[in-house]
């Protein structure tokens, strides 16, 4: 095993990888931007190197400076986390050139699967079903390609991931505008504006298979994650097993994912994403050549530490188990707590976290990148923390997730916690019968004041909220504003309150 590893990321995933290093007896060191000097991942690492300014391109995306930092601190390997440099094949190759082990797939496999068009071809060759689609298109040839596929269709960034640079187009008239938007978003996110078109599968579930390969050519899968609860292709909640998957279908999709990974010469952790249509047919969507945000869901049903396994494989160790030895049990759910306001169109929020108290207890884990006092800056993605719960069955996991959400204290910045409170308390999530349209179809009603279970609980607690607000007002105005009441008297509320100095 390595003696020292550079964790080349920030936020919750850097904290997660630092913890895996500690558990392996590896010294974790990290990098930070000038804006992140005081952030949690810096505090938990043995050392941290300031690689540049707040903007990602100056710091976390600056490959040469990141490699310089690794060498300055004596790291032998580099774990990229997700995002930033994680799926950059050139960077992975550059690490190798400069004598650093890159914790991830070989650069060649990464490049092939990172290019969505090439990935499609690999899938077809491996006999994995794909949705019909085009090659790379630009303004000129997009119309022709679109006509061949038919509407609705999706524009996708060739270099994409996480829904960046993706657009749904329902009619020919909006194709040109959407194409420009997708290209500019792709350029901004990946420095690569290439896009292609794909038939849009209506009402699919998003189901992905976790795969792992080692240097000896062994590839296994660790079951699926259902990521159908998403908004604008950003996942919000993931679970395993999928409520829509039978053991037979799991084996079939797992086999397909393993064939694809083998065909791509894949090694280390990867995820094969599929669309599952309402008739139970699945189509290859893309392969993520990295650790996923939602990897803990698989950790909790498989009992494996996927980050530790990544590090072991990067250090040349074998997987240590075969497909029949993979044992999946129970159910797990992950909630992505982001700094976005679900009651205001999920607009991102920034500011200082006043209080953060994660949930805890049996079956609850929280991977957070923040603590009380942390600053949420506009420079990076808004993921604050992930609550991951597990239980013997889906219903226990759901109840635990709800318990965890209600226990969590997160104030100072708007977050998706109230979104999860309502989703988890609602009947649709309970039933397990939903698809990727869940948020757009159900959130308007769930998020309204008149919604079901969750909102009733909210109404019941309203008097306590009023009292807390009143107490806070009183505190802020100073105790001299108090109206003395003779002991034993009842409250006398007469007319409109007097005008008082406000210090809100």
């Amino acid at each position: 095993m390595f003696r020292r590893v550079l964790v080349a990321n920030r936020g919750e995933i850097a904290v997660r990888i630092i913890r895996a290093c500690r558990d392996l007896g590896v010294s974790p060191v990290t990098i930070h931007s000038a804006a992140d000097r005081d952030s949690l991942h810096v505090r938990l690492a043995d050392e941290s190197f300031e690689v540049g300014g707040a903007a990602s391109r100056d710091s976390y995306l600056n490959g040469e400076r990141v490699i310089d930092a690794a060498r300055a601190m004596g790291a032998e390997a580099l774990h990229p986390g997700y995002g930033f440099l994680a799926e950059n094949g050139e960077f992975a190759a550059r690490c190798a050139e400069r004598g650093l082990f890159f914790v991830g797939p070989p650069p060649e496999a990464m490049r092939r699967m990172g290019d969505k068009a090439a990935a499609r071809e690999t899938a077809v060759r491996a006999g994995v079903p794909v949705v019909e689609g085009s090659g790379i298109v630009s303004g000129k040839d997009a119309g022709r390609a679109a006509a061949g596929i038919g509407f609705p269709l999706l524009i996708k960034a060739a270099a994409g991931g996480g829904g960046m640079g993706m657009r749904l187009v329902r009619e020919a008239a909006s194709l040109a505008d959407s194409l420009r938007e997708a290209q500019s978003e792709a350029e901004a996110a990946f420095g690569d504006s290439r896009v292609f078109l794909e038939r849009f599968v209506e009402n699919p579930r998003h189901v992905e298979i976790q795969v792992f390969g080692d240097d000896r050519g062994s590839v296994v899968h660790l079951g699926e994650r259902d990521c159908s609860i998403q908004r604008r292709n950003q996942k919000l909640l993931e679970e395993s097993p999928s409520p829509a998957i039978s053991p037979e279908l799991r084996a079939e999709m797992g086999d397909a994912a393993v064939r694809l990974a083998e065909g791509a010469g894949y090694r280390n952790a990867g995820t094969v994403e599929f669309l599952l249509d309402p008739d139970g047919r699945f189509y290859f969507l893309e392969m993520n050549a990295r650790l996923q945000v939602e990897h803990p869901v698989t950790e909790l049903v498989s009992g494996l530490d996927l980050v530790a396994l990544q590090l072991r494989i990067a250090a040349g160790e074998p997987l240590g188990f075969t497909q029949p030895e993979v044992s999946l049990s129970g159910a797990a759910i992950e909630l992505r707590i982001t700094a976005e306001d679900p009651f205001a169109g999920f607009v991102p929020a920034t500011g200082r976290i006043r209080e953060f108290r994660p949930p805890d207890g049996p079956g609850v884990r929280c991977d957070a990148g923040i603590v009380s006092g942390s600053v949420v800056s506009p420079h990076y993605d808004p993921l604050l923390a992930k609550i991951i719960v597990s239980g013997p069955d889906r219903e226990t996991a759901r109840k635990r997730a709800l318990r965890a959400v209600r226990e969590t204290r997160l104030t100072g910045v708007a977050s998706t916690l109230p979104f999860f409170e309502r989703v988890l308390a609602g009947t649709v999530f309970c039933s397990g019968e939903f698809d990727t349209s869940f948020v757009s179809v159900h959130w308007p009603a769930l998020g309204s004041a008149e919604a079901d279970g969750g909102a009733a609980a909210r109404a019941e607690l309203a008097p306590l909220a009023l009292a807390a607000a009143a107490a806070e007002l009183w505190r802020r105005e100073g105790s001299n504003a108090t109206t003395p009441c003779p002991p034993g008297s009842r409250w006398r509320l007469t007319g409109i309150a007097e005008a008082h100095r406000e210090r809100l």
Partner: protein
Amino acid sequence: MRRVLFLDGKEHRVEVRAEAGDATVKVGLENPGDELVARAAPGGWTVTEGRRTVEAGVTSERTGELVVQIAGHTYRLQSGRGAVGGPRRRGAGTAGAAGGRSEVRTPMPGKVVRLVREEGEQVAAGDGVLVFEAMKMQNEIRAPESGVIANMRATRGTPMEGGELLFVVEPLEIA
């Protein structure tokens, strides 16, 4: 201390009385009329109503508004003074109502990547007016009220700070 608070558009009268120093207060509500006890806690208050005690985080995001969080629920309360004719409505961005006009401001630093509507155009509440990019995500900023776009300050591609004015929506009867 007596006050009026607005929650979800409804008016509530409250009265606060100190109990044990500044750390514990009793709060009277019109309805149910019973006393609640609030104790200062890190990040807010713990509130007891009868046999139920909850933790309430209390913060302010803007002047005149308190955000209370209890058990995964969020409550936005407006204080009586300064809220003319009741609480403000929340739009997609930071909408500030002043004499019927709604000012829409940038929620955080970023830039406008597309203008969907222009100054002088009529909009319905909820109509998309422009696309704002921040934290690598593009978000549509919508009109908080129906009316006319009176003052379009946003221009495409210009970096903006948080809290800058994007545009104003004026009610139709005024415009």
